[in-house]
């Protein structure tokens, strides 16, 4: 973002210009993310209250212990989800690079980094699909919970109910992010941003992508770590 406007008029809030020196779309994106944070916040707090008012809960180390193509009976607690998380975080890094490249009007670097981000997003979604499928084969689904509480007692279905709903909602966000990034990629390749003289839309897509990553950190903590 250029700061020339700040230099010419020192009064930020006196009208005739954006006080934050951003165009409206970015402002809207920030407010949208705030509102989306409340959506996720409501989900996670609901999950927390139900979990803490329930007597027992399954142990994530026992539930999430398998790995694609792993030999029968292998015990790899949280390894797979750590890889998923790592992929998503790396895709955030490539997104940062894409945004930076956009600011330098470097079309080639924008393209490569966007492609990497899209690949990362798709890889994350594929991992999630595998994990869901695996759990489903074990008998877990909305309204069905085959796992026992950590203390061996029967568990309420709210473990799986919340797991699928919230990770599903997050997955839906990743999916939308991938679509957005693909649109950005197409627009880059069509020289749309070169014609406009700026890659602002990539910055907005980037904000969204980082947000979705950040949410995953919370979802990951709530379902896999504690």
């Amino acid at each position, binding site marked *: 973002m250029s700061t020339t406007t700040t230099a010419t008029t020192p009064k930020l809030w006196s009208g005739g*210009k954006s006080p934050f020196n951003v*165009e*409206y779309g970015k402002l809207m994106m920030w407010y949208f993310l705030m509102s989306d944070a409340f959506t996720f916040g409501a989900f996670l707090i609901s999950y927390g209250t139900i979990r803490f008012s329930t007597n027992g809960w399954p142990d994530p180390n026992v539930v999430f212990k398998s790995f694609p193509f792993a030999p029968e009976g292998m015990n790899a607690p949280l390894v797979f989800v750590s890889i998923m998380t790592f992929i998503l975080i790396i895709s955030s890094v490539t997104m940062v690079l894409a945004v930076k490249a956009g600011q330098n009007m470097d079309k080639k670097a924008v393209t490569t980094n966007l492609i990497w981000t899209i690949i990362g997003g798709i890889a994350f979604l594929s991992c999630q699909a595998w994990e869901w499928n695996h759990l489903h084969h074990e008998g877990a689904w909305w309204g069905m919970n085959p796992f026992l509480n950590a203390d061996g007692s029967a568990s309420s*279905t709210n473990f799986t109910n919340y797991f699928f709903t919230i990770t599903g909602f997050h997955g839906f966000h990743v999916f939308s992010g991938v679509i957005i990034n693909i649109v950005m990629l197409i627009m880059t390749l069509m020289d749309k941003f070169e014609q406009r003289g700026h890659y602002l839309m990539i910055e907005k897509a980037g904000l969204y992508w980082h947000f979705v990553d950040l949410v995953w950190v919370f979802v990951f903590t709530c379902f896999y770590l504690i």
Partner: protein
Amino acid sequence: MSNEAVLHAHSDVATHDAHGDHSHEHHHHETFITKYVFSQDHKMIAKQFLITGMVWAVLGGLMSVLFRLQLGYPDATFPWLESILGKWAKGGHITPEAYYALVTTHGTVLVFFVLTAGLSGTFANFLIPLQIGARDMASPFMNMLSYWFFFAASIVMLSSMFVETGPFSGGWTAYPPLSALGDASPGSKTGMDLWIVSMALFVVSSLLGGLNYIATVLNMRTKGMSMTRLPLTIWALFFTAVLGVLSFPVLLSGFILLIFDRNFGTSFYLSDIFVNGVGALPNEGGSAILFQHLFWFLGHPEVYIILLPAMGMVSEILSVNSRKPIFGYMAMVGSLFAIAILAFLVWAHHMFVTGLNPFLGSVFVLLTLLIAVPSAIKVFNWLTTLWRGNIRFTPGMLFAIGFVSLFISGGLTGIWLGNSALDIHLHDSYFVVAHFHIVMGVASMFGMFAGIYHWFPKMYGRYMNNTLAYMHFWITIAGAYLIFWPMHYQGLAGMPRRYYDFSIWESFKQFQDLNRFISLVAMIVFAAQFFFLFNFFYSIFKGRKLTNLNPWEANTLEWTTPIHPGHGNWVGEIPEVHRWAYDYGKDGKDFIQQTTPVGADESHH
């Protein structure tokens, strides 16, 4: 790249009509569709919201007349009811299912479609660009989408009234298990599915609108329009939008969980339930109270989403028509801010009797009663604005004064309810019904009427008829008090809300006459709204034409636009602003518009 580019992108809209006042004639190549249907002009979108809201107000009002008929005349039969409602009024007598469906739909429609979409949809759209000096909203396209999502929500809600099992009937708050179990009641089946879909569409609509309003107010103010020069309408609409953007998503989360409970066998809100005729349900581990938390986290901000726009417009109208600056401008902004913050911290006062931990309850009592402080500041400032003013009793002004009266009356009962000990007795009684109808329902309707009467000349370039407006005002204000005041006594006597027939209760029989009286007045007030409806539609086409730009001699920017502003609002440059919006009666001048530069010898306010 900054806002300038955005502003410039918009200003070429205006160069089209730089050559004449009758901008609409030369404007673009507009077809009927782009001008009246898929319009991206904020003024047209505002009118679309207004008229859709009015349709819903009539429908919702009619519903209340129907269920008041049941409450007022529980033993009578009305054969004509059967001819319009069919099986819902067998033998001319509204069935219990129909009664609950009517109450529920009335509540939902008035709260969300009339007083949220119809009120802030209309006036945020209409006033924000005009009063801050912008060509249009930040994103006219999203703005258009916001209306059409609302329209879709309306259609879905409307269609829910025609399904076999009837519309949802578990109350506008949609508490589970009635909302979560299709077997719980007829209205919990398809009617509830449609209700949820409609409300989800509505959330999307209000999000699209809200983001736009926020971005526009922050980013698109004209030169010189600093935040502290904004008219109070804009401040109020801004806080309204912030409230909506931060609270509706929580409702959406609540609805998503509800959808899973309804359709996918989950137990988010369900535990240990036995349904008559079905037996014990397997659901276990959920909590119906959780929904109440999620709902009221929206629900309480929602009541302020409804009230704040009315407060903002009333502040503006009172000041203009008292020919005095608003008293305590910064205090007004500060109290709006305080209300917006507190609105998020008091939701559990709707849940005092749910088994909430009494300690937690006492925290919510404290926070709830704190709202009385900013509310009292606002009332004080309105009254001091009127004090020794040179009052012009225009219809808008009357409704604004009526608003202040109603807000005081209803706010005081809020303080009763805010005490958890008193609320144990008052909760779910007619006292609550009286409280929220006066402070939110009628007061915000008054704010809306005030806004319509005041800005009608700007909307349509014509005046509304004053005589009809005065009749409308007096019947409505008297009727509102006659309807809702007695309900306080009924509630104190323990009469519960949402009961179908009180005549079978020994303890409430005594209220039969009073109920009949209330129903009668309700019908009269409903009928009186046709003074307004007729006036509105007649005046659009036949009202006295405006001949001067500034009929109320007001300071704000909307009155510097042409009588029929085109898309882009100002011909040529957007005016620059040099002062706040409330220079009335300053230095011997009756009013000084915001566009007038500050003179050398002018005093400071």
